[in-house]
């Protein structure tokens, strides 16, 4: 067993780790690590630690990098969601079947404010990789919610996915990581329908897109402008794309359209045809049977990168920023004034040395982001609605600013002006996204209906019992 201490930013963290543990010995190895952590806490603070688990997170990775990303994210949400994380790394091959596990007890923060969680990394080689469910299910903590996080596009229709989903309360996806987003959205909706109410679905990409939905909704908070909502005749959604020959990711665009269509009761006409390629047009019917033209446009020439790579670079930049203002150094933004730091004033407890950091959005809005000029794959660039109410046209636009880190609204309607409104579009890190999914209990019906509509737009008839 080894102990590894690291300090990232201002958060001190440490791991108690046992490697090459036989599957049957995992629980006792964890017990030993907890004892070790407890002894050390007693020695340094005089207070024993609590072994606390509120959920099981099963993270399914397809390579070592993804596995590490899953571990990092679950470590960072320790304070809010002390969990047992099980990271699966199946590596099917012709080698003899073999399972290797690493057990870890993770400490986030230090002193009496430290929080702890535990993780089990399961590497499965050879044929064992094809029989993971039997490995995972006994490790799941019974009686607690189980979240299944699939990094990358899941192997749709596979026995592994099916069995793991059956054991989970929520399946967390990230449609921006799908190799084929059309297929991915379609199959995700199929899975949702097939599993009925047994498993709830969520998508990091849906959470990333929340500020856009908020801005679009905001136009129609004004009673003056609300009549336009029932008379939209054209929607154009523009998403970021690289060079023309590069693959595109239309997931964000379709989720937004799916959301609008499902909220406003638009339907697909019979004989509806899906589009192909990066730029597409669809025709829908609104509740009154009028046509709505929907366009999905690619904005080519954007410097695209993985959302997480961008977030990590931003986080790194903030950490390096000389002013060290906690409000700009992102990870600590939410902590500053809320009282952890004042714990000593309370007197019931000693002052914590390093408070654990809640996961927050990358909130820095410095020039660093603009300099990078990079944007997440398939990110929304603009949403444009055109409507005619009582013969009077109205145009409602949400457009990403040139710095790529903000969006500004524009409204041109004859019945009443709405001044422009700018908001910051945070680049959310994996831990912040994970945190928001772990907070969700039950179905997010707005998302699920949006997904269902999006899937039909990209050409999947989810009513077909294909799964």
């Amino acid at each position, binding site marked *: 067993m080894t102990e590894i201490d690291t300090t990232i930013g201002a958060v001190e963290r440490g791991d108690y780790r046992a490697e090459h543990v036989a599957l049957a010995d995992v629980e006792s190895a964890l017990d030993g690590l907890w004892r070790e952590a407890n002894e050390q806490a007693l020695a340094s603070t005089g207070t024993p630690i609590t072994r606390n688990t509120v959920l099981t997170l099963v993270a399914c990775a397809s390579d070592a990098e993804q596995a590490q990303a899953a571990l990092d994210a679950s470590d960072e*949400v320790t*304070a*809010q969601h002390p969990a047992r994380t099980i990271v699966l790394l199946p590596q099917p091959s012709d080698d003899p079947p073999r399972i290797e596990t690493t057990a870890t007890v993770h400490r986030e923060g230090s002193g009496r404010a430290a*929080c702890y969680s535990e993780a089990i990394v399961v590497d499965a080689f050879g044929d064992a990789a094809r029989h993971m469910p039997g490995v995972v299910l006994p490790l799941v903590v019974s009686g607690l919610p189980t979240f299944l996080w699939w990094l990358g596009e899941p192997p749709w229709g596979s026995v592994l996915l099916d069995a793991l989903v059956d054991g989970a309360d929520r399946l967390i996806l990230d449609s921006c990581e799908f190799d084929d987003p059309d297929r991915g959205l379609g199959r995700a909706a199929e899975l949702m329908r097939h599993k009925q109410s047994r498993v709830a679905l969520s998508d990091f990409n849906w959470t990333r897109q*929340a500020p856009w*939905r*908020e801005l*679009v*909704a*905001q*136009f*129609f*908070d*004004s*009673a*003056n*402008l*609300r*009549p336009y*909502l029932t008379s939209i005749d054209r929607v154009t959604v523009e998403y970021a794309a690289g060079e023309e020959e590069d693959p595109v990711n239309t997931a964000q665009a379709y989720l937004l359209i799916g959301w*609008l269509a499902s*909220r*406003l009761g638009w339907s697909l006409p019979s004989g509806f045809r899906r589009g192909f390629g990066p730029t597409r047009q669809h025709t829908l019917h609104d509740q009154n049977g009028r046509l709505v033209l929907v366009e999905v446009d690619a904005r080519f020439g954007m410097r695209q990168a993985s959302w997480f790579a961008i977030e990590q670079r931003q986080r790194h930049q903030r950490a390096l920023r000389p002013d060290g*203002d906690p*409000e*700009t150094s992102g990870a600590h933004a*939410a*902590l*500053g*004034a*809320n*009282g*952890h730091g*004042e714990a000593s*004033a*309370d*007197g*019931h407890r000693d002052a914590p040395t390093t408070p*654990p950091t*809640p996961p*927050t959005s990358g909130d820095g*809005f410095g020039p660093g982001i603009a300099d990078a000029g990079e944007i997440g794959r398939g990110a929304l660039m603009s949403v444009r609605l055109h409507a005619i109410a009582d013969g009077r046209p109205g145009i409602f636009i949400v457009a990403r*600013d040139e*710095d790529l*880190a*903000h969006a500004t*609204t524009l409204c041109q309607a004859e*019945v*009443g*002006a*709405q*001044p*422009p*409104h*700018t*908001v*910051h579009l945070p680049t959310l890190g994996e831990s912040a996204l994970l*945190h928001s999914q772990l907070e969700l209990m039950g179905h*997010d019906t*707005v998302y699920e209906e949006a997904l269902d509509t999006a899937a039909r737009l990209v050409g999947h008839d989810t009513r077909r019992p294909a799964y």
Partner: protein
Amino acid sequence: MAATLVTPTAINPLRAGMRGTRTIEPCVVVVFGATGDLTHRKLIPALYNLALEQPMPAELSVVGVGRRPLDNNEFRQQALDAVDKFSRRRPVNPNVWETFSRGLFYCQAPFDDPDGYVRLKNLLDQLDRDRGTLGNRIFYLSTQPSYYPTIIENLREADMARRGRPPGSGWARIVVEKPFGHNLESAQGLNDLLSTAFREDQIFRIDHYLGKETVQNIMVLRFGNGVFEPIWNRRYIDSVQITAAESLGIEGRAAYYNEAGALRDMIQNHVMQLLALVAMEPPANFGADSVRDEKVKVLRSIPPMREAEIVADTVRGQYGAGWIGGEHVPGFVEESGIPPTSRTETFVALKLQIDNWRWAGVPFYIRTGKRLTKRITEVAIQFRRPPYLLFRDIGADKLQSNVLSLRIQPNEGISLRVEAKVPGQEMRIRPVNMEFFYGRAFGVEPPEAYERLLLDCMYGDSTLFTRRDETELAWGLVDSIAHAWDHPPATGIPRYEPGTSGPREADTLIERDERTWRRL
């Protein structure tokens, strides 16, 4: 011109499932006292934070009204400085500030000058046209209380209060800051005056304690959990302690504080609100009037205190000079602006009874004061002790009763003290705390009270604001105590040393009942 398109569609279907499911209508916030301390410290930063974190409509506009000659740009610069200094979201995001600040305007007007109100009205009409604010206004009284009557009268005379307007033609609301009067009579007078201009549902009497998440959580804790409500009564609860302690002195508010004292400054509003939320019956729903009806019932169940009871069950004190945190601090009467003969109380301890089926016989011990050991506001529910029989042989007299403490500030959270066995061969028992901290459990900073209350006012939801009858009932109680204290006028007032938990007499008050104050 816009009238033909306005249809009374109640909801925005796109709001379903969003964090702000309710719809905020566009409006103008008119702040009287635009250059004042409260405006800079709280209001402007709160409005900016709301714009930054999105729930705010794009049309939202702010008009500062003040006596000083400023133009829009100077007012915007002041606002920017205020956000830079006091917002919890610093530094200012320049892009968001750019569009937000375009909605800030200044109107120079002495509060007693009718022409100023004409200018204000013209400006507001102009904003309705330019920024789509639809005739909706929130008037925020952030001035000295002595200006309230003048402003209210002028708003009425200028036809800006819109008492009788039909729905759909723009609404007006007025937010009144504390102190709301200085006794029952003046509070009634202010209420009467307000009601000549505004309907009760247009009036938002702000008590920023009610905007705190922890205060709202009292209702969730009590009514959203199955385990507490069945034992939330005289059968299981021994007593309740409410503490609102501050380590600071009067901090430059000498004139106001010397006039008011702790009783009027804290008990009449904040403490009585906490007490009402802890003691009320479950409301029929979370609607504004249902909740406030229940709070009023609690206040009505507190019998007026007779003189003998006031002598026995109330204690006041005044801090003397001394040392706090290694620093010498002046006594209250040595503070600048306080007459040396002042007998104003800076500390109050009370024992109250709530005479209803739930609480009869359960004393509510209340204390509040300045220059105490530390800043802490909490409600502690002390449960009855269990029978000792089992533990008699092992020092059962040390067994403590369970305490559920609701911490309002700082370190917002809840803790439950339970007795536990110390691991080992022997049977040793020690109290341990089961704690829940807001910041840690939810990983987010709770929004500022003012942000929540401003939003609620924009929604038109007055649940977290005090209604006329609440204010007047609380004043009735406070007046009866103040009256007894002044008749005959006290010749002296107990002094306490700064940095302690108050005068000795406060300990006597509770120890008489074989109880003790919780340690601060």
